[in-house]
């Protein structure tokens, strides 16, 4: 369907278009997936994609965008580290008249285009699932991502919104496990010591931590008494959902985000109009529908 | 004791305890204006501790210090220095990365605060003046770390006298100096005396004491023993006061026949250090190496031991030419080396006496790959007894031993590797007279057991008293090889000062 893309992505001067992309963290599986799809689409479209890793630092991200501007790339894709702190990058790109597309999450300064979804919503979906499962009554623990990061803040916000709606749900403890599986496992073990079977559900801000919680609960023989829900739908999590150890995860479509982002970048670079906002909805993944999310083995 | 206005310094009832151990017990000391007051005592008697309290580096438990009749605040270096006390420390107290001038004026750069401005040109000029006055040819902008120990010691002296102090403490100021520099120092001391400066002088070199001291105070084991005019004492009486008994002859007669050649070097050179040095040593022989400071004696020893490379020449062990690349090679060929710098190259301070003694022969104490504590302890205990090392137990950290005993630990370590030839570089530096006698005895014992010994020393009596032959080096060159009969202080010095 992209037969004319190679030709189409020549800029005005016939030079190959260059798109710079700065990604939140190339150590995060979901982001790597988004980036892989971007790379694939860019190649299909005959665009040169320069990917750099912001390593979760907004400062680094701003600097990388500055560097893209100095290199005079044709478009910039940013997977923002922070809502506020990554905003100067957007402002700088716009000031330099280089289109900038935010992928996956947003910044407070509005970019040329946005492709992604609202993290708050993912947490709402996850927490809602817990509330339904528990019938609106029970004790919940929550595992935060790295404190102060946008994803952590938004996911906490979404979770708390739902908790407010269900006065029967009690958040008995919440603590950071820094997005990390091993840390989450330690934390869950300690909580088990504290609360024993008094915990009814675990909400983890990402699947890595969710998997850690599952492992600790399984080891303690409590898994069938405690619901665990997390976000991202990484392959491990999908597998766990299929096995029934993880009760649910929330799917974000990495492929769509990646391909739409490149599409927007190419169009904007060529001065064509694009949708200001492309929202890619989250989907709750449970045992019932997990099959449709599982990737066929490569 | 009534207050006497002649006394610039009065110390009374001073007691200092290190974690329960009394290092000083009710010590007193009175020093007159313009006198050289020697403070004597064996290693570990408490001399340095007393002086460190005086300058404020340590805090006394009790007792009082009066300077000009006014009490001196305890444990405040600044105050002590401001009130006119300066000190040459036993351990060289230099900042290696700073220059000579910067070291001399450290702490006194400006009169201002921490944020005062530096003027290094000015410091350099002042330092140059000072060094010129003392007749030392060291550039003031040389970094301290590039100086020889002797030069550093001279800089320390310059630092102390530049302070316009009225009491100058000299804690073993000549331990690394040769006679020439010592003469310079004594000249300076006499000048200072003229100006009414009081000098507290600590040394283990008896001849120095009787040359320069007016009054002598003796400490023994942290106790005040007594104060006498130097004129009322002679060496034997002084030693008796210090050690509490008579000491026999320092250099016992030894007549051992020399055996086969153990080590010989032929025309060995090391660029920039020494050239064309040839000699040999035989079983049961002591070869003394004499020379002035910087003559290259240490460099020769280090090269033979594999710490430095020789650039040309040949080393033979028992007639066989060998190549020595590292101390490990040297040890394997039966060479042992006791460095002149025992802190730097001798012992590991935080290992125990036992562990230091076995360090060079550790693989001999293993079974199935594991260390045999008992075998180590046995060997170390025997060595401690043989060398009469004074230590509470073999498990004592060497750090807490007195200098002489640290030296013996290093010798013990070298001996345990069963060498055929031992190189002793300044084996008695900083060591008290009693310990010296023991080390001399030990050298004779080693000799009797058929070990070949090369002894480097700046103390001519020592060289003359122990050596069977004497090699004299001058500026890295071989000036003479003298037999015991030919050698006198005069002939050695004549050769040493050649060129």
């Amino acid at each position: 369907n992209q037969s004319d893309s190679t030709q189409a992505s020549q800029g005005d001067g016939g030079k190959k278009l260059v798109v710079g992309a700065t990604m939140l963290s190339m150590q995060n599986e979901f982001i790597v997936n988004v980036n892989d799809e971007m790379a694939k689409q860019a190649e299909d479209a005959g665009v040169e994609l320069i990917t750099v890793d912001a390593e979760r630092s907004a400062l680094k991200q701003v600097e990388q965008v500055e560097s893209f501007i100095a290199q005079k790339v044709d478009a910039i894709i940013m997977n923002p580290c922070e809502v506020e702190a990554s905003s100067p990058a957007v402002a700088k790109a716009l000031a330099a008249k280089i289109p900038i597309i935010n992928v996956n999450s947003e910044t407070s300064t509005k970019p040329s285009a946005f492709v992604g979804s609202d993290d708050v919503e993912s947490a709402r979906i996850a927490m809602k699932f817990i509330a339904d499962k528990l019938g609106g009554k029970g004790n919940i623990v929550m595992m935060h991502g790295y404190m102060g990061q946008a994803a952590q803040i938004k996911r906490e916000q979404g979770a708390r919104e739902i908790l407010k709606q269900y006065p029967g749900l009690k958040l008995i403890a919440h603590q950071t496990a820094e997005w990390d599986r091993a840390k989450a496992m330690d934390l869950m073990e300690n909580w088990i010591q504290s609360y024993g079977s008094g915990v009814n559900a675990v909400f983890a801000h990402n699947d890595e931590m969710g998997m850690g919680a599952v492992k600790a609960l399984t080891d303690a023989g409590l898994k069938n008494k405690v619901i665990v829900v997390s976000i991202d739908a990484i392959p491990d999590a999908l597998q766990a959902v299929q096995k029934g150890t993880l009760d649910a995860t929330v799917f974000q479509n990495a492929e769509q985000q990646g391909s739409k982002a490149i599409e927007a970048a190419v169009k904007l670079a060529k001065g064509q109009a694009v949708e200001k906002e492309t929202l890619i909805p989250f989907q709750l993944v449970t045992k019932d529908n997990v099959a449709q999310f599982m990737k066929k083995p490569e | 004791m009534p207050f006497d206005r002649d006394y610039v310094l009065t110390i009374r009832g001073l007691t200092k305890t290190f974690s329960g151990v009394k290092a000083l017990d009710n010590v007193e000391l009175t020093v007159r204006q313009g006198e050289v007051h020697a403070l004597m005592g064996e290693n570990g008697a408490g001399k340095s501790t007393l002086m460190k309290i005086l300058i404020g580096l340590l805090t006394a438990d009790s007792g009082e210090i009066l300077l000009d009749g006014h009490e001196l605040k305890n444990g405040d270096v600044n105050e002590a220095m401001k009130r006119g006390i300066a000190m040459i420390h036993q351990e060289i107290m230099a900042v290696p990365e700073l220059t000579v001038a910067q070291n001399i004026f450290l702490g006194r750069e400006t009169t201002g605060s921490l944020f005062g401005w530096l003027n290094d040109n000015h410091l350099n000029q002042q330092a140059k003046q000072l060094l010129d006055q003392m007749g030392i040819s060291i550039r003031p902008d040389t970094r301290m770390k590039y100086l020889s120990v002797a030069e550093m010691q001279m800089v320390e002296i310059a630092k102390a006298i530049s302070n316009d102090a009225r009491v100058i403490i000299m804690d073993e100021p000549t331990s690394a100096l040769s006679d020439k520099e010592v003469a310079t120092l004594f000249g300076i001391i006499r000048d200072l005396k003229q100006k009414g400066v009081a000098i507290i002088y600590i040394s283990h070199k008896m001849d120095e004491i009787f040359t320069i001291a007016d009054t002598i105070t003796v400490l023994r084991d942290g106790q005040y023993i007594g104060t006498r005019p130097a004129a009322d004492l002679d060496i034997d009486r002084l030693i008796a006061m210090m050690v509490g008994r008579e000491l026999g002859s320092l250099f016992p007669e030894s007549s051992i026949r020399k055996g086969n050649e153990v080590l010989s070097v032929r025309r060995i050179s090391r660029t920039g250090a020494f050239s064309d040095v040839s000699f040999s040593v035989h079983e049961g022989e002591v070869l003394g190496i004499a020379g002035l400071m910087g003559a290259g004696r240490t460099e020769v020893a280090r090269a033979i031991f594999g710490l430095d490379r020789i650039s040309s020449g040949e080393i033979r062990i028992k007639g066989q030419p060998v190549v020595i690349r590292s101390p490990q090679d040297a040890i394997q060929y039966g060479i042992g080396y006791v460095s002149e710098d025992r802190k730097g190259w001798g012992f590991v301070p935080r290992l125990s006496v036992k562990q230091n003694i076995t360090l060079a022969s550790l693989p001999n104490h293993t079974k199935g790959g594991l260390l045999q504590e008992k075998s180590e302890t046995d060997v170390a205990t025997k060595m401690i007894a043989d060398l009469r090392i004074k230590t509470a137990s073999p498990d004592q950290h060497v750090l807490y031993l007195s200098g002489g005993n640290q030296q013996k630990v290093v010798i013990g370590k070298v001996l345990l590797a069963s060498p055929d030839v031992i190189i002793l570089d300044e084996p008695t530096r900083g060591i008290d007279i009693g310990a010296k006698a023991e080390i001399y005895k030990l050298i004779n014992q080693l000799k009797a057991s058929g070990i070949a010994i090369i002894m480097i020393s700046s103390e001519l009596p020592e060289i003359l008293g122990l050596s069977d032959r004497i090699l004299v080096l001058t500026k890295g060159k071989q000036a003479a090889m003298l037999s015991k009969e030919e050698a006198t202080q005069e002939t050695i010095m004549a050769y040493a000062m050649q060129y």
Partner: protein
Amino acid sequence: MKNTIDPYLKPVRESYRTRVSRLGKAGIFVAFIVVCVALSLITPRFLTVPNLMIIVTQVSINALLAFGVTFVIITGGIDLSLGSMVAVTGVVAALFARSETYPVVVPILAGLLSGLLFGAFNGFVITRSKVPPFIVTLGTMTIGRGLALILSKGRPISNLSDSFNFIGGGQLLGVPMPIIILVVLFAVCSVILRKTVLGRYMYAVGGNEQAAKASGIQINNVKMAVYTMSGLLAALAGIVLTSRITTGQPNAGAGFELDAIAAAIIGGTSTSGGTGTMAGTLIGALLIGVISNGLDLLNVSSYYQQVVMGVIIIGAVVLDSVNQK
């Protein structure tokens, strides 16, 4: 020389010496006990067998790393690449551990071998160049992280074999495997440090490198050995971690080096080299683990957890040093 009273022969000195060395070891132990007693009084959930079991299991990874870095620090060096080595070795092991492709010894050996090579590389660069260990291992820390990501393509490696997962998750006679590994390695490392020639040489090299050299010790061999052992222990930690979370994680172990070094220093190993014991390091690691567990049990909010953690660690070491005065 019978009349001479030598200060070193005084019985007091002996007792002083032993007291110092006893306290030196006991100091942090006392602080550790204080923290434990305090926690037991505050919450009944602390002093239970399962909870203590969990603490030790959690501590095991940091302790393994801390043992390795204790060797290194005793020789006067430092190893910042620990965390990255955990990741690399964990990923390597995971690559060979996927669902029953190889017998379990293959991933274990592969992981250990990669750690050995990594550590040996550190040692090689440090001994052959004059670059300070801080820079060398900071460099290999970055390199190692990159390698782990390259090897794993940036993704977790999961579906590991059950036999592999047993290493970190299984139990033997009711005792979790990581505890058993910890105890065995503690014994081995203690023996190496106290009972072998190599251990003695580590103290000598760190205590006075020149004197060690003049005693015929091959300094470079000793340094090669400690960095290699640090790599091996990091590999073991990596394998335990990978097995415990049943996944090879390229971003595992970030920041672990600081915890491990902290454990060693809290336990009395001096950064200037020449001193340190495995027992001290173990206590240091346990102290960190106990505090972290206690704060979770007490449900201290995560912001304040960090503050309290910092305060207690500094406090414990202050207590230790006051004790030693």
